[in-house]
Each structure stands twice: as C-alpha cells, then as structure tokens.
C-alpha cells in the first residue's frame, strides 16, 4: 500500500515538525521498485533528526543502493503525536522514499546504537503491523534484521529479531540481501531461509539457540540446529569502504547538520571501560588524499559548510594536522569539527589550524580527576597533558571548553571525585588568565556502565546511593561560577546497564514495559522509570541484583557466543592490570596480543594487498 500525499496532508497539519515524515531530501535515492530483486527498508529507532545524524545508516544506504538489483529506503520512529495521528487515520508505518507500507519490504533492517531506543523498535514494528515476536511472524512478513553495536550483546532483543548482523555491515549486509533475493526466487520458506542465513559469517539467528539457566544465572546458550555455529565472529572490512560522497542532505534541521568523513575506524588506546575501543578493532586509517578528495566531493554534492572528521579519536590520525591545515586553507569558510579529541595528541599546531576557520567547540575527555584512577582505566593521560592542551585552546582564542568525566568507575573513591573539582578549578583559573573573564567550562559527568567485551564487563554497576553522594560531592567541589555542570539521571543509567549485559529474560521486561506504555526512553521528558521497575517486577527479574552483581571470571556471560576478535584472556589480563593501576601502552607502539590479528589473518592479507602495505592496520 502506498500512502498518498492527500492521505498524509491532514496528519501533517496537526503534528510538530512535519518535515520529519515527508522525505524528498537532496540526494535521496529512488530506485525502481519493480526491478529490484530484494527491497530493504533501513530503520533507525529514534526520531528523524537523530537517525539522520548517524553515519552508519548513511554508509549502508549507500552500499545497498550501489548494488544493481537492491533497493534501500529509510524509516524512522515517528514522535508520539504522529504515532497517534497515524493510528487514528489507520495509516501504517511507511518509508520516506516510496511511501510504501513497511510490511511490503523483504527486510526491515534496524540499527541498534543505544539501549534506550529498544522500545522505539517495538513502536515501529507495531505501527508497521509486523508481529513483535519473531516466532509470531509468518511468510510475507519482512525479515527483521538488526545490526550496530547493540548486536554485540543481542540477547535482550533476541526474541524480537529474526537475524542479527554482528560487526561491520558493509559487506555482510550485501551478502545477506543476495541470499534473501535468491531465497525469494527459489520460493524458500521463512524458516528455511533463516536457517540458510546462519551459514553467512557474522550472522546470528537467535531462534536457532536456546538459553539454559540455573537460578538467576544463564549457564549456556545451546544450539538447536547443526546449522547454527557455536560462536559468531564479528565481521570487519579489511580496509575502510569509500566515503559516501553524496549523502542525503536533510531539509529540516537535524542534530548533526553536517557532512561527516570517517577518517579512521578503531582506537589504539585501550581504555578499559570503553566498548568502542574494544569492538571496533583493528585500527584502519583513511589516507589524507582520500579525505581531501572526499571534502571536495562532499562540498560539490551537498553544499554543506559544516564538516566533521569523525573517528573514535580524531587527533590520533597520522596526518591530522596537515589535513586540517589543508582543508582550512582551501575552504576558509568551512566550520570544521573534530568530535573526539585525545588530550595528549592534541597540539598547539592543531589548535592553530582550527582557529583559522569558523570556531566550533572543543570537547576533551579526561574521564577521571585523579592520576590514580586515570591509570586504572588506562586513559594514559597526565595532568600536564591536560593543562598544556587547555592552554593551547585558550591561547588560540577559544574561551569555552567541554570536559567529560565518568563517575562510578571501578575503585573510585571520594578523593578521586574531589580531584575533578581541583582539576577544573585550576583549568578555569588558567582560562581566565589567558582567555579572560568570559571563560567557561562545561562539565558532563556521566555514570560508568559496565559493557560487554570490555575488561570491566565483570564489574558491578555503582549503587545509587553512593553515586548520588558522589554527584553531590562533585557539585560541591566544582567552582561556583563560569561552570556548567550536567550529570546522568540514575534511572536511565540503571536501564542502560540492565540491557547492556542483559540476557534473554530481558525480552519479557522490554515487552511488558512497552505494553505498560514505556516510549522514547532516551528522551527525559518521555522516560517513565516506574513502568520499567513494574515491568521487571511483573517478569520476576531482580534488576538491582542483576546490575550490582560482580560476575566471576568462570561465569558464562550472555554474550559469550559473540566473538569480537578480542580474547577473554586479554580482557582478564587488562582487568588484572587495572587493579594495580598498570598502564598498557598505545597498541600502535606495543602489541598486547588482544587477539585481533590472529582472528582476522585473512582480512589482514586482503588489506595488505589492497593497500600495498606491510602494516595496513594500526597494529605494529
């Protein structure tokens, strides 16, 4: 069913930001429906403005549409006003490109980036008239396929998803769609098709497994079918795929209203709390020439004036300063931002280069206030680095910086928290001396959530009382003026922690909470923690015990069947080193045998060939 403009117009007149629901953006791809052998709708389970700011979605849209007989369109989660308008008018969830009802696609591919968007997925499936539980779907329903960092602990969503793509999607999504196209052509039934998808490397079909519990602990995940591999290894691409140089240019304002270029993937620093640093290994860098060409192409194809050089640690790129200098020289009116900067690789030269253009903000993440705790988490940044960096920024004309800290890290004491206050006080004094009285420091203190596939995956979540005392303590120790302080809400942290390491029993909690009315949990104004507490209770899940329990090394973890290439031995070793505050150096300088090279030997060979380099990755 196609939704017509006449059907939509009365709804659009009654909702906020109707531009979210109409498509028609520059560079949107409209492929011929009838000649496509397989049709996918790429879904992002949040509002248009958030989803359109996601680089991964833009990449996959580009990759699929570049295939001759494949079609990819987009859909986002409508806001609550639009959801009720659509329900009242009997209009199902539809795609932005061809405005077709979502249940007409072969694949509903959803990107999982943040735990608190999980109920949005249910809202979308419901609005699309697709049964919420995979087991209830029949022939003709789209295959619900999930990817993104959420698929690295897929269990909380296992019963809602037909297939997970584990790891980087650029290659495997195309393989998957080819297989689905072939299956369609041969009239393969849903079950048979899903069984056949299990043989694609990096694809996890949750219905082929069954968990076994003892008491409150999941003991194992057992394969029900010989077709199901015991371990699903994440997929990686040997070298970075080409930059999508003609991305969709949103007509309405989105969160990141800019052209983004991924300059590298992976991070060599090995911060022990950081999931991204572990799961996006190995490090692959894009050459300066390729980045510069992409800038020219993007300006010509999009007209963007705001650019971001995106990476887990932009200032670690081998040629970052040359890159920034060259771009600013060629395009002085560009606003260039480097969203994640390392304190110790940020230089005066880089600050100088950036100061020539339109000034965007600076965010640095010391994470912890004391050297002791920074060593525990392997941040590897000294206080002198931070002072030097702040000096460079203030002396190049900026008077505002943002600093990001975490509370609740393993081994944290009150003293560590007071140290944040002392550090910020000194930075502010320096700023006022150099940049003047307008100096302002924004402090964000998020709460540490133990994440799967990190050295801290066995750690408990901090107790609410202790955390709230420390938040209050931090507030007291910060200077009273020229400071903006924000911190994370406990309930959101609690829920994120629950899903992060959750097992399959969480499925019932998610479904129950959604039935009780939980919606848009990532949005503070919509988030109703009481519903989640009730849902957990209704399902007999002791969420507090789950979150605050320390896992044993011998324990079977719910994500044990997902292999990200980083070995358990390495994680345990890093955990042990954290307790003694022992640093592990940048892995571009010294290999810590995390396991990635052994796991991806053939990809390494391919990368060597493609780049004609002995060491195509960041590994030494």
């Amino acid at each position, binding site marked *: 069913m196609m939704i017509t403009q006449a059907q939509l117009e009365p709804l659009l007149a009654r909702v906020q930001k109707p531009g979210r*629901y109409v498509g028609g*953006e520059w560079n949107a791809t409209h492929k011929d429906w009838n000649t496509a052998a397989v049709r996918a709708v790429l879904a992002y389970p949040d509002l248009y403005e958030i989803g359109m700011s996601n680089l991964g979605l833009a990449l996959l849209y580009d990759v699929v549409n570049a295939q001759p007989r494949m079609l990819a369109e987009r859909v986002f989660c409508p806001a609550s006003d639009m959801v009720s308008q659509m329900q009242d008018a009997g209009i199902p969830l539809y795609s932005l490109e061809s405005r077709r009802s979502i249940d007409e696609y072969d694949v509903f591919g959803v990107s999982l980036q943040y735990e608190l968007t999980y109920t949005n997925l249910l809202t979308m499936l419901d609005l699309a008239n697709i049964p919420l539980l995979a087991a209830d779907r029949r022939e003709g329903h789209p295959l619900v396929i999930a990817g993104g960092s959420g698929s690295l602990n897929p269990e909380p969503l296992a019963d809602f998803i037909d297939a997970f793509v584990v790891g980087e999607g650029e290659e495997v999504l195309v393989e998957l769609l080819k297989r689905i196209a072939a299956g369609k052509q041969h009239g393969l039934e849903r079950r048979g098709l899903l069984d056949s998808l299990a043989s694609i490397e990096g694809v996890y079909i949750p219905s082929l497994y069954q968990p076994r519990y003892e008491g409150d602990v999941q003991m194992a995940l057992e394969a029900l079918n010989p077709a199901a591999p015991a371990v699903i290894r994440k997929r990686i691409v040997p070298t970075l795929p080409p930059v999508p140089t003609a991305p969709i240019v949103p007509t309405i*304002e989105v969160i990141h209203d800019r052209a983004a270029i991924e300059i590298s993937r992976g991070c060599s620093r090995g911060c022990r709390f950081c999931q991204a640093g572990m799961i996006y290994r190995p490090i692959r860098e894009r050459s300066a020439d390729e980045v510069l060409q992409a800038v020219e192409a993007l*300006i010509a*194809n*999009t*007209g*963007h*004036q705001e650019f971001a050089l995106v990476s887990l640690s932009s200032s670690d790129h081998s040629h970052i300063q040359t890159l920034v200098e060259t771009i600013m020289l060629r395009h002085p009116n560009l606003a260039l931002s480097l969203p994640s900067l390392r304190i110790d690789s940020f230089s005066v030269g880089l600050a100088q280069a950036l100061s020539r253009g339109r*000034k965007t903000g600076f965010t640095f993440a010391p994470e912890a206030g004391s050297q002791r705790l920074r060593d525990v988490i392997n941040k590897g940044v000294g206080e002198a680095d931070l002072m030097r960096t702040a000096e460079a920024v203030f002396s190049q004309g900026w008077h505002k910086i943002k600093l990001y800290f975490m509370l609740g890290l393993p081994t944290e004491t009150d003293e560590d928290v007071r140290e944040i206050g002392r550090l910020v006080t000194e930075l502010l004094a320096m700023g006022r001396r150099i940049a003047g009285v307008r100096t302002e420091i924004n402090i964000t203190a998020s709460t540490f959530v133990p994440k799967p596939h990190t050295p801290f995956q066995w750690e408990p979540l901090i107790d609410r009382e202790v955390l709230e005392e420390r938040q209050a303590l931090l507030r007291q120790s910060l200077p009273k003026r020229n400071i903006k302080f924000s911190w994370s809400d406990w309930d959101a942290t609690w829920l994120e922690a629950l899903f992060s390491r959750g097992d399959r029993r969480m499925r019932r909690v998610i479904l129950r909470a959604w039935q009780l009315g939980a919606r848009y949990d990532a949005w503070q104004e919509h988030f109703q923690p009481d519903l989640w507490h009730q849902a957990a209770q209704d399902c007999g899940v002791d969420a507090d015990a789950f979150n605050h329990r320390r896992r044993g090394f011998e324990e079977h973890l719910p994500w044990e069947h997902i292999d990200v290439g980083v070995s358990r031995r390495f994680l345990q070793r890093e955990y042990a080193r954290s307790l003694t505050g022992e640093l592990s150096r940048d892995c571009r300088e010294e290999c810590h045998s995390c396991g990635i090279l052994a796991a991806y030997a053939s990809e390494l060979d391919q990368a060597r060939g493609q780049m004609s380099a002995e060491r195509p990755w960041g590994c030494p």
Partner: protein
Amino acid sequence: MSSQPLQRLRVIYGVAGALSYTSVLEMGRVWERLLRRAGVPLAYSQGFNPHPRLQFAAALATGYTSDCEVLDIWLAERRESAPLLAALAAEALDGLTIHTVEEVPLDSPSPQATLQSLSYRMHLRSPRRHDEITAAIERLLASDEVIIERVRKGLAKPFDLRPLVLALGYIGRSGEDHVLTCELAFHTSGSVRPEEVLGALDLDASAVHIHRTALRWDAKETK
C-alpha cells in the same frame, strides 16, 4: 573569506510538496547549500562566523505552498542571470522551482521593506454550501471591523483583521474542495494569516491547503 558584494540578484521561486514542510530558518539553510552546490560566488559577511547574506520576504508558513517566494542574494563576483538560473535549477531539490533570476541595485530596499500585500488561494473542505460561503464572505467584506482573538504569551487579545483584508472571493469548486482567494495587506506593524481569515468566516473548514500566488510591492520603491 569575507568579501565585498559586487552584485545583488533577486530569485523568485516556488515551493511545493515535501519542501513545504520546511520552516523559515531551515529554508535559509536549504538555500545556502543549494547556492554552494551550484558554485555561486556568494559574498560573505565579516566577523567571527562569516556567513553569506541572504534576504527573504514574508516567511511562508510551514505547510503552505507558493509560486512567488523571493530571495535576494549578494555575490562577490558578477554572474549572468540566465546561466545562474540554469545552475540553480540543476541543484534544486524536489518541490523547489526557480522561476526567475534578475539583478537589482545593490542599494535597493530589502524585498520585505516595500512589500504591500500577499495573495493566496485556499482549498478547503466544508459542510457549507457554496451560497453560504459566498454569503459569509460578503458579510465579512461588508463589516467595518472583524474582531478575532489572538493568544500571545497565554493572553487572549482582540485583533481587528478587517482592514488587512484587501480582497476575498469565492472562485468555485475543484473536486470536493471549495476554492477561495484573498489578498492580505502586509505591514511590518501587523499582518494577518489566511487561516485567521478562514476562521473568521466560520466555515468549519477541514483539509485546508493554502497556496501563495502573488506578492505585490510598492511599485515606486522596489527597484
């Protein structure tokens, strides 16, 4: 790069379809990007955040379509109108139609400053018969004042829209829709929205679609 403007051009364009759900601010960005894609040598302002100078007239409400939007742009290098129009048209997204591009003197007043009135065509559904609608229009036009309530900061204030209605007429039917047209005065001190006029007619209107058909300037001062 800040640069002195050497030429000022006035673009007249139309808005339809998906693009009509774009706010005024967003339309500014849509145009900036379009102009950059088309390689138009925009003159940039001086200052901390240099930006190109663009001037629109009479913001089009979100959801309205139009045939007669105005945009003035300032260029750092001279360009011929005809090839520029072709370049803009090539980069225009769905729903955007470039009608004309013509040069105006650098020092002419802003397109909004001398604006006199705005004309609209309104499509709507109504349970009223066409003679009832015509009668309502005649009543409104015959009144000396037509007071509506406007809510500002939570307070309802009376407002007389009658002096701003320069013309209002019933055109006929298009399918199930009734079609009306109006010309509404535009002053910097006050203006009236077509929906407010429809409200005053009390037509119990639904599925309203409003299309801007013309802008009228003070002929003496425009160029």
